[in-house]
């Protein structure tokens, strides 16, 4: 187990270096003159040259790569071209909002997806199972940005139940910044009404973000439940007289959870990417909205910073999923002798 984690960590370092090579190539080897881009459209030749010298853009490519990597290692993602602030500072400011949204979506996926998948698997072939199959195909086919807008039309415009976007209402005061998660910070402030507002603002974006992954996870859970139901140990458990509920809870649910966890882990990548689209629709001030504003202003350091941060989180989460896999399934050991 220890060597397994060590090996994975080592591979993670390799992947991270590879990622920085890719993002470096994107920012530094693009057709066109990055210095001109940095200096702005109306800069004179001298200004462009000054910028090139300032950012080391006049040096050789390997030197530039060295400077870039050195910067990354020190948490320097470069300067945002729009607000002239270090990208790192921007990311630190916007990241908590994205993580809060993603966690809320994961919560929805787990709380709804796992039980529904279990029920569908148990009731295989019944009408409710068919309806669910149709819904899950719909869920993965739906453009989430469009789904978000439809939710806004229904719940904001028509029913007037939920806010249209943002993290708080206009009249709410922002909580003192501690964790950056409004749900936690408002509680730390003891401000229940703002907590309620933050919660209400979270519902639609989280539901939008969760929709696609919910479909995938439910489908996976259903498939694994069906597979587990056929397993010998389930028949044995039934034969020895365990109640239906106990068999489902102790044997079926737990074992079906193992492959589903992997899929859930892979979905985190989709959720992080979905953040970009969801945040635009709901004007949610996270790194996704930051990236899209960067796109509008051709702010390459900002875009690459977001790309890199999301990818690093993704790689890290995948490592955690692999470890969780071992913890959940006692049959898998990475000492060499796998019992499977």
């Amino acid at each position, binding site marked *: 187990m220890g060597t397994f984690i060590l090996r994975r960590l080592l591979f993670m370092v*390799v*992947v991270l270096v*590879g*990622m920085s090579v*890719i*993002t470096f190539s*994107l*920012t530094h080897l*693009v057709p066109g003159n990055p210095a001109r881009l940095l200096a702005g459209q109306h800069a004179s030749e001298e200004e462009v040259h000054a910028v090139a010298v300032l950012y080391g853009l006049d040096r050789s490519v390997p030197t530039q790569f060295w400077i870039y990597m050195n910067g990354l290692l020190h948490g320097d993602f470069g300067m945002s071209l729009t607000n002239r602030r270090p990208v790192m500072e921007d990311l630190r400011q916007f990241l908590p909002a994205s993580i809060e949204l993603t966690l809320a979506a994961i919560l929805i996926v787990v709380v709804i997806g796992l039980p529904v998948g279990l029920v569908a698997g148990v009731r295989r072939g019944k009408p409710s199972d068919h309806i669910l199959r*149709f819904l899950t*195909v*719909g869920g*993965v*086919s*739906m*453009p989430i*940005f*469009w789904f978000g*807008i*439809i939710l*806004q*039309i229904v719940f*904001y*415009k028509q029913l007037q139940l939920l806010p249209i976007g943002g993290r708080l209402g206009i009249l709410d005061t922002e909580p003192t910044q501690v964790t950056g998660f409004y749900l936690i910070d408002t509680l730390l402030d003891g401000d229940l009404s703002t907590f309620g507002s933050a919660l209400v603002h979270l519902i639609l974006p989280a539901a939008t973000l969760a929709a696609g992954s919910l479909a995938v996870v439910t489908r996976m859970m259903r498939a694994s439940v069906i597979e587990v139901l056929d397993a010998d140990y389930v028949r044995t458990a039934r034969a020895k007289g365990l109640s239906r509920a106990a068999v489902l809870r102790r044997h079926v649910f737990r074992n079906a959870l193992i492959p589903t966890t992997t899929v859930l882990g892979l979905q985190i*990548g*989709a959720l*992080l*990417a*979905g953040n*970009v*689209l969801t945040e*635009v*629709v709901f004007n949610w001030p996270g790194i996704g909205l930051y*990236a*899209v504003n*960067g*796109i*509008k202003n*051709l702010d*390459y350091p900002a*875009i*690459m910073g*977001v*790309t890199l941060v*999301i*990818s690093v989180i*993704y*790689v890290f989460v995948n490592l955690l999923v692999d470890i969780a896999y071992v913890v959940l399934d006692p049959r898998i050991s990475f000492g060499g002798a796998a019992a499977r």
Partner: protein
Amino acid sequence: MSEPVLPVSTVDALADTPPMLRRKPRNLLRRLLTNPLSAAGLILVCLAVVAAVLAPQITPSDPLAMTLENRLAPPSAEHWFGTDDGGRDILSRIIYGTRSSLLTALGILAMASILGTIVGLVAGSCGGWVDEGLMRITDMFLAFPALVLAMGLAATLGPSLFNAMIATAIVWWPWYARLARGQTLQLKHEAFVEAARIAGASPIRIAIHHILRNCLTPIIVQMSLDIGYAILTLASLSFIGLGAQAPTPEWGSMVSIGRDYFLDQWWMVTFPGLAIFISVMAFNLLGDGLQEALSPRLRR
């Protein structure tokens, strides 16, 4: 197939009855139509293709023609899906949008599958450090969340539908490389490949005539599963401003423009979004059906 050297051509003939399932087209169609969901997918896909091909003939009006006195008109007998901020007919724009969606999605799949298949075929055939090197590069690309990397690439290349297509293809080829490599490794030790090798066929001939031909079925199945996601990815990139630029009739950018008006002019986002939704779903249903009909063992 008309090689003068007898053994090789005999082996080529052998390769024509490969281990992969090869069914008659009529048989395949019947299998697809027995499942109501796949049948629905097939019909919708056919409709989309017809709409794309016949767009100029069947659209009620020019998708780019502005009639400002008629802007933001709700759905009516004249404009079934209403008009947009430039008074353009939304139905016509959606029909024309079918063209760009289908063409760019096919473009992505063609580029990604060709590049990926070449890489996978070379890696699997050569083995050794070539395999190791190529597959580590592949892993590197797979470590990124696809849409995010595509976003970064498309932003660097500059916002346009063509660049969005290139960016998505660059993100997608590794999946095909993995698939092709896996198939190659499997086929490499099949009797008909061994026979070809003994008969003196060159490695390149083996790779192309024996291995590639038998890789094609799973690759085509994968393409049919991916085409819906290709449409979705392109629409998403267009939505955040990285794909087609207004006023090009493209579904993702139509939703993006409609977002400025959606509270009062709901039709501007609803119908283009529905077009994306239905076409992606149609391709997904068809892809699922094809996968089941062609290779029941291959499950994602």
